[in-house]
């Protein structure tokens, strides 16, 4: 039994924590929150110098060729620090989509640049409120051209490359969708930034008007590929959520220890203690579910679809609970702009939606569990 990260992976975690402690401290995150820059370019460059984007990309495509466990370790630290960079879009989604479905030529063309952090990738799926499905997606691709509007697209306003989910036939069946690679710098692409609940992560509205689009994977395989892609990303984002939840719990704990009321630290009141314990319990359950997801992802196990959905639901709930109760623990100061509580609160809600809501993942989970039986 060895259900834990290795010593080498823990060294990597410590290095990542130290690096992000220096280069992605809350004051830096706040600069993106309050400034015009869509992300922290300097931090992104620094992360690329550390080689993080290429962690799980094979050496033959310019990556470091470690593995997904190492990527999970980094993801947890990115979540803890709230690092304002396009890492998730570029690596968990764009690079993963290429690894899943790309031809050798496509991988050779894009993965080395993604691994170096020179190119930023994104995943364009949603088309406004509601769940994007084969029934609802209107973006249409035919004869190498794509047209339609994607919104919101995480990092869509800053990315160079998009993996786009588009319709290739009429009808509402899963085989109506396909994936495409679109160079966002090409003609026929118009992009604007979109304001979201978490300005520390950049989002765009991307309008395609006959832009050149290259099929990624087989025509009609889009829905199946999206499911696989989201499962893989869900495990990685679960680690970000676990990291964020831990940071919010740590922050609440520290404040409660130092805040005196009625002649004693508020951390000595059971109402506060039990609140923090509820956060801790949810976090540990989420951490354990995320570990199992990491195992399934790193071994490409048949259990991955169930493991990923459980990790996603568990981590989403843990981060949300920790982030909202962190504000309550702080009392009035907790909902001021000045205190950092809202940074975690915003990120918790953003990550809860970014790969689809917990409600949707619960239904996915049940579909997978009852199909297997």
């Amino acid at each position: 039994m060895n259900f834990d990260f290795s010593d080498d992976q823990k060294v990597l975690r410590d290095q990542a924590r130290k690096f992000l402690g220096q280069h992605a401290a809350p004051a830096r995150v706040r600069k993106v929150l309050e400034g015009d820059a869509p992300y922290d370019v300097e931090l992104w460059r620094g992360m690329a110098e550390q080689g993080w984007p290429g962690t799980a990309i094979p050496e033959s495509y310019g990556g470091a060729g470690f593995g997904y466990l190492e990527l999970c370790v980094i993801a947890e630290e990115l979540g803890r620090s709230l690092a304002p960079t396009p890492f998730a879009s570029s690596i968990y989604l764009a690079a993963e989509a290429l690894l899943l479905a790309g031809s050798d030529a496509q991988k050779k063309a894009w993965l080395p640049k993604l691994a170096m952090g020179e190119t930023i990738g994104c995943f364009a799926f949603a088309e406004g409120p509601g769940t994007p499905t084969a029934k609802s997606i209107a973006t249409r691709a035919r004869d190498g051209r794509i047209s339609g509007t994607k919104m919101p697209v995480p990092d869509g306003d800053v990315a160079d490359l998009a993996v786009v989910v588009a319709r290739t036939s009429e009808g509402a069946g899963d085989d109506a969708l396909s994936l495409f690679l679109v160079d966002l710098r090409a003609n026929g692409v118009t992009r604007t930034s979109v304001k979201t609940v978490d300005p520390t992560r950049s989002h765009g509205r991307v309008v395609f008007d006959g832009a050149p689009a290259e099929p990624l994977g087989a025509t009609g395989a889009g829905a199946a590929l999206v499911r696989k892609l989201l499962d893989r990303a869900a495990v990685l984002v679960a680690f970000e959520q676990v990291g964020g939840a831990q940071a919010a719990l740590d922050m609440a704990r520290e404040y409660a220890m130092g805040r005196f009321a009625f002649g004693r630290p508020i951390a000595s009141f059971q109402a506060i203690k039990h609140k923090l314990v509820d956060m801790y319990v949810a976090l540990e359950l989420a951490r354990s579910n995320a570990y199992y997801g990491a195992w399934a992802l790193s071994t490409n196990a048949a259990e991955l679809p169930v493991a990923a959905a459980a990790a996603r639901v568990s981590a989403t709930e843990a981060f949300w609970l920790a982030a909202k109760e962190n504000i309550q623990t702080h009392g009035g100061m907790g909902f001021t702009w000045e205190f950092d509580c809202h940074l975690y609160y915003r990120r918790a809600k953003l990550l809860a939606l970014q790969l689809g809501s917990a409600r949707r993942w619960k239904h996915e989970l049940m579909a997978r569990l009852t199909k297997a039986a």
Partner: protein
Amino acid sequence: MDFTDTKDEAAFRSAARAWLAKNAEPKRGAFETWDARYGDEALPRAKDYQRRKAEAGFAGITWPKEYGGRGGTAIEQVIWSQEELEYIAPRGYFEIGLGMIMPTLFAYATEEQKRRYPPKALRGDEIWCQLFSEPAAGSDLAGLRTRAVKDGSDWVINGQKIWTSGAHRADYGVVVTRSDPNAAKHKGLTYFFLDMKSPGIEIRRIKQISGASNFNEVYFTDVRIPDSQRLGAVGGGWGVAITTLMNERLTSGELRGPDWDELLGIARSTELEDGPALADAGVRERLADWYVKRQGLRWTRFRVMTALSRGETPGPENSIGKLVAAAQAQDMAAFAMDLMDMGGMVSDPELAPMRAAFQDAVLSSPGSRIAAGTDEILKNIIAERVLGLPADVRVDKDVAFKDLPASKR
């Protein structure tokens, strides 16, 4: 990251499997218990099974060899428990004695006592019970009032204990008493072991809301205990009691009773207004919530096993197990009954689905949220020991016990 046994662990597991295949009976249904299968024969058969288990070296796996144990590792104990769970095995007879009381004897008894008592307990020849809680001392155990007064080389005990599991079949017990009411609460306690057949002991069964009787009230009237059976110093009983209770947390295993898979079975087989319950979106969401928590606990146990496998002491993550599982068992049982709608009221095992396992669980689960630490006490423990939050302000610390206010009865 992997789930495979080490070479030594695999060898131990296969030895355990081989012994169980030969010596234990497979379960006929998921919830069949030893007591239900063997009825009046349950106790003698339990003792027989325990003797054979001890002779094969699978009882007292982590105990020192000189007291009859195997001298094995904590991970071997976990592996044994996993394998034995597949079979019908006696539960509730020996765990308290072997898991909580004997480790206390190892820490506090004389060499002669350590050679006399643990081997017999291990073989199931002698059963032990733990006389701790009192009507006025539950979560606040140190508020206990059973008096011990020194008389020559004996102590004379008067008072009442409650919630004593298995006292009615126990040969020996350990008891925490108040030897000095003038000392502060935690400082006036003394700990003994005693023969449960001693004159002056009266045992009354407690009937629980489920109808079962797993616990007793035990009354002490001028019961004499030789001073040689004192464990720890006079006035040092609290520290000894903590030793026993620390081992309780290692002993408390998985809860028995219907779990998520059984709830899924009910959802599959029960028709609601729009078809099978399992097709209902609301039902599916709740099933998903409980599945995720159940899996979270399962993988948490694997993290604990990993620490044990490395010879480390498991971290605090183990402490969340009962807190989450007990409340969830209650919620799932109540929900299963809801799915059965009006028919869910029926608790006759001949008429209710799964032999009324969920109806039984609704009545037994409140106890799981209290035994071995209430939800609230467990949260306090996690808050203070894991999160390092300050202890509550105490009004009972530097006051003589006799001067503390008490409940009106």
